[in-house]
């Protein structure tokens, strides 16, 4: 139990996928204009992360045991089809949500956080439960980072910023400050 808690906190805070490991930056900068969309994007990512974690566990346990060199190719194909399935399901179950997510739903396939989760899970030899907790932690961290970023940018929109620094320059420097704050979590488990 303690170990599962450690996996969760580590994935969400200490090794935050977005701000410490630089994963999933496209959606981090692309969908962080307002808080509502950012939270929904985080939730969709978390869902795909959890599904991926289960799929990767099945692949590693039953399929890829003797052919580790096919891992990368197998993972990306499974993630792509998974996102496709999720997309069709959302379209069927909740057309409103589907329209809100727009292009960013299929783009989850090329979100490096998802593939990175598959690779980390494999390299660290996580089982089914550990993998699930890891995926939930990573998703929570990702959602937190993107919503924090969105609320900062909403405020910054009202500020008077020099012309050259507008847009991405400012966004990156803001992310730097946010990342600096997350560095504070690095000592959280030093007694470990």
């Amino acid at each position, binding site marked *: 139990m303690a170990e599962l808690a450690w996996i969760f906190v580590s994935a969400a805070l200490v090794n935050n996928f977005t701000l410490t490991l630089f994963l999933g930056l496209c959606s981090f900068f692309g969908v962080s204009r307002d808080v509502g969309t950012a939270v929904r994007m985080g939730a969709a990512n978390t869902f795909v992360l959890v599904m991926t974690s289960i799929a990767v566990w099945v692949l590693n346990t039953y399929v890829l045991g003797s052919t580790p060199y096919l891992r990368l*190719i197998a993972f990306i194909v499974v993630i792509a089809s998974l996102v496709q399935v999720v997309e069709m399901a959302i379209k069927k179950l909740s057309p409103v949500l589907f329209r809100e997510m727009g292009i960013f739903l299929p783009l989850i396939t090329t979100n490096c956080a998802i593939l990175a989760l598959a690779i980390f899970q494999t390299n660290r030899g996580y089982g089914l439960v550990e993998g699930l907790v890891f995926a939930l932690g990573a998703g929570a961290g990702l959602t937190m980072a993107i919503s924090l970023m969105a609320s900062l940018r909403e405020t910054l929109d009202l500020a008077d910023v020099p012309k050259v620094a507008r847009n*991405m320059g400012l966004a990156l420097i803001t992310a730097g400050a946010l990342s600096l704050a997350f560095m504070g979590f690095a000592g959280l488990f030093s007694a470990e």
Partner: protein
Amino acid sequence: MKTTTPTADLTRGIWRENPVLVQLLALCPTLAVTNSVANSLAMGLATSFVLLGSSVLVSTVRKLVPTEVRISTYILIIATFVTVADMVLQATVPNIHKELGAFVALIVVNCLILARQEAFAAKQPVGRATLDAIGYSIGFTIALVIMGTVRELLGNGTLLGWSVFGPSYEPWVIMILPPGGFLTLGLLLVFLGWIKERGAQSVTDDVAVAVREAA
């Protein structure tokens, strides 16, 4: 495509449409592995290899691939080349491979590579696709090495492991840590924006106004 000369194909990706500094594609590797010049160079070369291989192959088979499954096909081709690059790096430079970690495998989801396949290689003959891939590879590697140079120089006081500032230099450790990546790229973009702004102002006022209104 406005210009069609071979030189234009080659140089487009290096500066005017630089994938990192202008188009802001492929941010993850740009920020994650540029804490030293050696890592940046290795990442740049690995990505270049994958981009070149995939562009040539995609351009070769462009008439055989049905439109509906083209993205999946590109991803599979890219994943194959990445697996090759991963194994080669692991065999030749195990230290660097270890430092780059999962980011070698993550070249698969590098949006720069997929973007070039979809936007260029899938529509153009092999020769032009090759030139385009070389140009973008150089542009990407240059951007990575600039980032790596700034971060290693300030964060460690060294370049490629050689001490530059001498033993009395107090390194800005923050520059080789994650926040340094965001800050370096952010300030670099501000700097480039400032240069562009200055260039626009040196033109006669009427033209500058017209350019800015058009932009």
